């Protein structure tokens, strides 16, 4: 059976490098929270009237949601397309996605001016013409779905067998729902920028932005699962059961192969976009350089490396490629939301995040890591609970 040891009796020391650093970051976060809610956004951000959206949107929202896409891709591969060998990857991916979305919502409380009204668009007055309304509604619903998808883990941990078995029965419905909601709002995050064509650099603006965002979220999610499994193997190896350990190479190679194909497709539809809009003329400019760097260095290259890694059965290469691909997604989302946006403004009016702003983002990510650690060291995430083995 499993070689995990979750009833470990060995007292783990409190003073570990992780705990110390995380503790300091949390303290900083509390201080910045105080500043934000006493001095307003101006006290912690460099946002201004030209740049109403800064890195809290670019990173926390756009990247956060894209990188949490592992949840729906993995669940769909396993439960809908019946690729059962990915089963062991589902729980970590769902937990990551759930925490990812919860943190997106958490971070938005810092960004919007009046966070206690965050539910207004859903419960008070619905601005149905707004893309942001679709984003908000989907994030709200998907967070609920992810919570239910994750629920079996704490229920098994609490030994609530009956409730847990009911929730498990919902797996297929939840997975289908998750895919629909993910499709809609991964793409609608791109659609957010459709309404401002005159402010977007033509190399990034396209009426196909929603499709670009959706397709790239798929390989973002796959890469994130690969990347994460590297990290968790490093730190949680002793927590993992046989199924998880044996499933990992399947996941790594299968996901790398899928990501290579999707990235290649993405590369070509983006290239097609350049041809279609006749944007060649922009390529020899500064923006063209950034765009080419993104397309060649962060899409074409990782696609090729993934393919090579799969062919040579080179796990190490695949893992490093996943890191490259994750950075590529972050680069892309920043390019769309900060580089392409307001491209016509003179450079002295452009935005660069304040240190405190970056601090809040680091704080949010750290909270995510802490929660992940707390949950995955206690609940059956990397192993199947002995009482429920093989029952889903």
């Amino acid at each position, binding site marked *: 059976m499993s070689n995990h040891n979750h009833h470990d009796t060995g007292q783990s020391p409190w003073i570990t490098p992780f705990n110390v650093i995380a503790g300091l970051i949390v303290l900083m976060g509390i201080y910045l929270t105080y500043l934000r809610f006493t001095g307003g956004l101006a006290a912690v951000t460099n946002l201004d009237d030209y740049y109403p959206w800064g890195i809290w949107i670019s990173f926390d929202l756009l990247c956060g949601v894209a990188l949490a896409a592992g949840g729906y891709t993995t669940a769909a591969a396993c439960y809908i397309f019946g690729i059962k060998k990915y089963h062991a990857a589902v729980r970590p991916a769902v937990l990551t996605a759930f925490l990812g979305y919860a943190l997106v919502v958490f971070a938005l409380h810092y960004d*919007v001016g009046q966070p206690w009204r965050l539910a207004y668009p859903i419960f008070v007055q619905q601005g149905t013409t707004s893309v942001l309304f679709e984003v908000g509604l989907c994030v709200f619903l998907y967070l609920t779905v992810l919570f239910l998808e994750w629920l079996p883990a704490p229920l098994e941990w609490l030994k609530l067998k009956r409730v847990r078995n009911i929730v498990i029965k919902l797996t297929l419905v939840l997975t289908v729902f998750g895919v629909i909601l993910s499709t809609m709002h991964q793409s609608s995050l791109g659609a957010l920028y459709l309404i401002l064509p005159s402010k977007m650099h033509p190399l990034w603006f396209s009426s196909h932005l929603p499709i670009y965002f959706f397709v790239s979220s798929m390989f973002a999610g796959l890469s994130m699962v690969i990347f994460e499994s590297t990290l968790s193997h490093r730190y949680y190896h002793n927590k993992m059961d046989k199924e998880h350990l044996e499933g990992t190479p399947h996941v790594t190679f299968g996901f790398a192969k899928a990501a290579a194909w999707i990235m290649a497709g993405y590369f070509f539809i983006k290239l097609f976009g350049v041809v279609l809009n006749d944007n060649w003329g922009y390529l020899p400019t500064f923006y063209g350089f950034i765009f080419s760097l993104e397309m060649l260095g962060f899409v074409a290259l990782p696609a090729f490396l993934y393919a090579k890694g799969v062919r040579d059965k080179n796990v190490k290469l695949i893992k490093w490629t996943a890191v490259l691909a994750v950075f590529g997604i972050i680069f892309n989302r920043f390019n769309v939301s900060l580089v392409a946006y307001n491209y016509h403004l003179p450079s002295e009016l452009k935005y660069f995040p304040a240190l405190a702003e970056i601090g809040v983002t680091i704080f949010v990510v750290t909270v995510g890591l802490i929660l992940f650690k707390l949950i995955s060291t206690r609940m059956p995430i990397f192993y199947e609970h002995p009482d429920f083995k093989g029952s889903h």
Partner: protein
Amino acid sequence: MNRRKFLGAMGVAGLGVAGAEKVLAAEDGVTGASVKDVKGLPDSYAVLFDVTRCIGCRQCEDACNYEQHLPEPDVDFFDTGVFQQIRRTDWKTYTVVNQYDDKPPGAGDLYRKIQCMHCLEPACAHSCFVKAFAKRHDGAVTYDPNVCVGCRYCMMACPFNIPAYEYHIALDPLVTKCTFCEHRLKDDREPACVEICPTGAMYFSTREEVLKEARVRVVNNPDKYQSHIYGEHEMGGTNWIYISGVPFEDVGMRMDLGTRAAGDYTSGALGGVPLIASFWPVLLVGAYAISKRREKIAKEERDSFVSQIIAEAGPEAGRRLAERLSRSETLDKAAIEEEVRKALNEAAAKTEREDH
């Protein structure tokens, strides 16, 4: 223009006070998509700004500040030093006059006032996820501070960079922008900035009349004016209209905005939602059914296969099995190997037990 003159203009336009009241009788604002039914809102109020007549005295800024109870300005309204920079609207400034170099030189400096354009199909209203903005029948685009969440998507969306935010306020910051002095429109009064203008650079009337006046000026003085009427069609049309003697780009107005209303760009994406919502479940459940069936067949094949092995289990079994495995395409090899290993172990154990 004074009130009497205005009412006179209304009379000439065949509207009369009753007509004006009808325009103003809007109980409900119309936003984004629905405004299309109100074709160009010909009876709504509008303002024509003539760039050739503005002298940059900034009295409109002053009047706006007073009328809207805005905080003291950083720099006095008589100070022309502000013209060193191009300024924009912010939380304590709903309107700004900027200075531009005149081309050709010698014709005097050029000035242009900016404020909300009061678009016919406003990007701000279309983008707001709580419908805080509304396009009114009187022409004004108004803002409801009681529902605004402060997401600032309206600021992202506005093609004219008009809405500003109270970033310095901790708990209840709001979006700020020109209101078209809607409280005055309700009494048929022109906005404060229009009223104070000493040179008549702004002409206030219905949108239909304003467009007519713009055309008259442009057509009668082709040497003086550019032949374009800015705001007639830009971004679907606006209620503040501009005419100019120099190319509009030279007074900081973008000519590349196009005539499509902002909402047109997103309707395609939003229209796709029902499609996705109905298409995906069918596809996914289909995929699920196929994979389930494949699983079932594989399991059946595997079961019969394995029972065969158990029956035949012996040293020979391994070799024959390897043969079959190499031929088998449909079965999951890993799973079979696992089953086979189990079967062989069992068989071996059985033989062992029998041996004892």
